């Protein structure tokens, strides 16, 4: 058995690095190298998923930092290390052949405690951003099974938290996830099923719009507008938006930011049209 172990350290191929993940002495370096090169290694995701013990090793990296979450004691080095492990899981979440096995094994749920943290220090901000990256990779391809899983496991409150307190980048990823959930019919119905749910999402979106006036971000604005536009597809939500859509979206505040983004400008026009026309009659949110 031991004779099969490759001895040539110069052969730092993807295969050797994946094998190194099983070795606690070599794991930190292998995580770094693999996550750096994950774009250039062909088919890294199936290699990570199907190789013996690799996902188990990555899960060990995840649970080993749970004690540093509360009280918040996560060091920059430990954050980097676990984020490299998360980058490899993002690779697994992105690949069409491994996405569903990854979901069926419930691996994403071990990331939820990271999204439930509140510290605004860099190690935590980076941890939340990278964790959202894994969820973002799952929703990138439209798949109702993924959306159902995320709704059943309560991802929306965790996204809303990041949309309230995260950096611009993690706000953008969290809003993107909410947008993808809303674009699925199940997701739209779920969020619009009660007035409380709708207003929870609506008020977080509204607060982000207000903060964008001070700190513009075109990419974040784009996802916010897309979320609002999708909400306006639901008749009751559309009536509610008639009253609660932020004025800044109506009064041209963002004309300059959207100058070079015709697609988002059209979405905004469509949103304002929907809210004006559809918002006139019918029962609104409670």
């Amino acid at each position, binding site marked *: 058995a031991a004779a099969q172990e490759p001895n040539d350290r110069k052969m730092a191929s993807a295969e050797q690095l994946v094998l190194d993940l099983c070795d606690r002495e070599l794991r930190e370096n292998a995580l770094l190298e693999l996550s750096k090169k994950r774009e250039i290694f062909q088919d890294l995701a199936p290699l990570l998923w199907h190789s013996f013990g690799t996902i188990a090793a990555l899960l060990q990296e995840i649970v080993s930092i*749970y004690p540093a979450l509360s009280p918040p004691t996560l060091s920059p080095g430990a954050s980097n290390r676990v984020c490299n492990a998360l980058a490899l899981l993002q690779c697994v979440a992105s690949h069409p052949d491994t996405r569903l096995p990854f979901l069926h094994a419930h691996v994403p749920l071990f990331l939820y405690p990271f999204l439930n943290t509140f510290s605004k220090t860099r190690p935590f901000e980076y941890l939340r951003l990278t964790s959202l990256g894994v969820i973002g990779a799952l929703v990138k391809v439209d798949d109702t099974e993924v959306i159902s899983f995320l709704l059943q496991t309560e991802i929306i409150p965790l996204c809303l938290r990041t949309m309230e307190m995260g950096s611009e980048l993690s706000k953008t990823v969290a809003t993107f996830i909410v947008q993808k959930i809303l674009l699925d019919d199940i997701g739209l119905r779920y969020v619009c099923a009660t007035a409380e749910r709708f207003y*929870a999402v609506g008020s977080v979106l509204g607060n982000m719009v207000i903060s964008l006036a001070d700190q513009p971000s075109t990419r974040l604005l784009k996802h916010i507008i897309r979320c609002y536009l999708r909400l306006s597809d639901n008749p009751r939500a559309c009536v509610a938006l008639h009253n609660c859509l932020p004025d800044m979206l109506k009064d041209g505040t963002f004309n300059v930011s959207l100058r070079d983004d015709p697609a988002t400008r059209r979405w905004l026009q469509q949103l304002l049209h929907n809210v004006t026309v559809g918002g006139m009659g019918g029962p609104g949110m409670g």
Partner: protein
Amino acid sequence: SLPNMLNQYAPPLRLPPNSMVEDDKVALIMPDQVSPSQTPSPSPALFTLSQLIAAIPCADIYFRINEKLSSLGSLQYSKIMDVALDKAIKEIIGPVIQRSVTIATRTTKELIIKDLAMESDDSAVSRAAHLMVGTLAGSLAHVTSKEPLRVALSSHLRSLIQNLNNNSESTEQIVHILINDNLDLGCALIETVATRKAIEMIDGEIKQPLSQLRRQKELLGSGYYDAFPYTQGLARVPDALRPKPAGLLCATQQRVYEDFITVWHSQSSQNAGATTSATAMAVAQGNSSVPRLYSPNLVQPADLVPEEPDHGTTQVLSVSAQFGTSDTFSQVAGTTSITSVFPSMSSDDV
């Protein structure tokens, strides 16, 4: 049309109430999003409350009572902690254990089947599964119980102490100190229950799918690799990385599942009088005679005791001195309203 599209989505969410999917729906809710006062979950619970209480370690529990707390005497404070912790744990333990055991069991089942389908030694499969599921369930239960336990514990401590002490300002201070010093102990107790319950369940979960896979392997011979989702992707994996019987794996691969013993050291299990991780204890108790094929150079039960039995206690002390918990208090209060309106999907949502 829209209604037709929705019908397409409906079936997977309307399975009969005893199916795994229905159980998962309720079980996967984050426990801090379930307030104890809410209506009980409609799905059958995996465990009854008395089963869970019975699994709490019954060794003597020593609370840490700060010297500053002199007004009532440390014996009195220990009694108060005991009553408050007992009540608080009973309130939150159900959903926490249900969720962490459900998730850990599913993850372990899928990964063990993926990695150990070629292993013919059942005791080796079982040991790897126990180590993994115990650590995953325990660590998940510990981390998710912390905030709900803090909230429940502080309300019970507050009312118990107020009965003995009219000065409300010092009551808050006392509650704060007691929680800071003893919260991790409570989490460690819940962790132990999760570990034990998950280990009890896992063999039953993997037995059937694993034997099915083995039967197919005998029937199909080399065609086996093309036949299943578990094995299809293996065609692209080089031989050195493929799952094999333990004897054919390299040394580091053989160690991976053993590493679950040491990867998670609850900082506070020392507090609870335990000198090692809940998983190591539970597995050592249950399986002490099992041949350890995955660890030729490890592990006798005596070796399961970690090398530095004392570092946890001091670490917890210095950590809690540096980081007050007041931030977390207000944050929890501020977010409850949002989380409580997003329960798990119910059939109304479909």
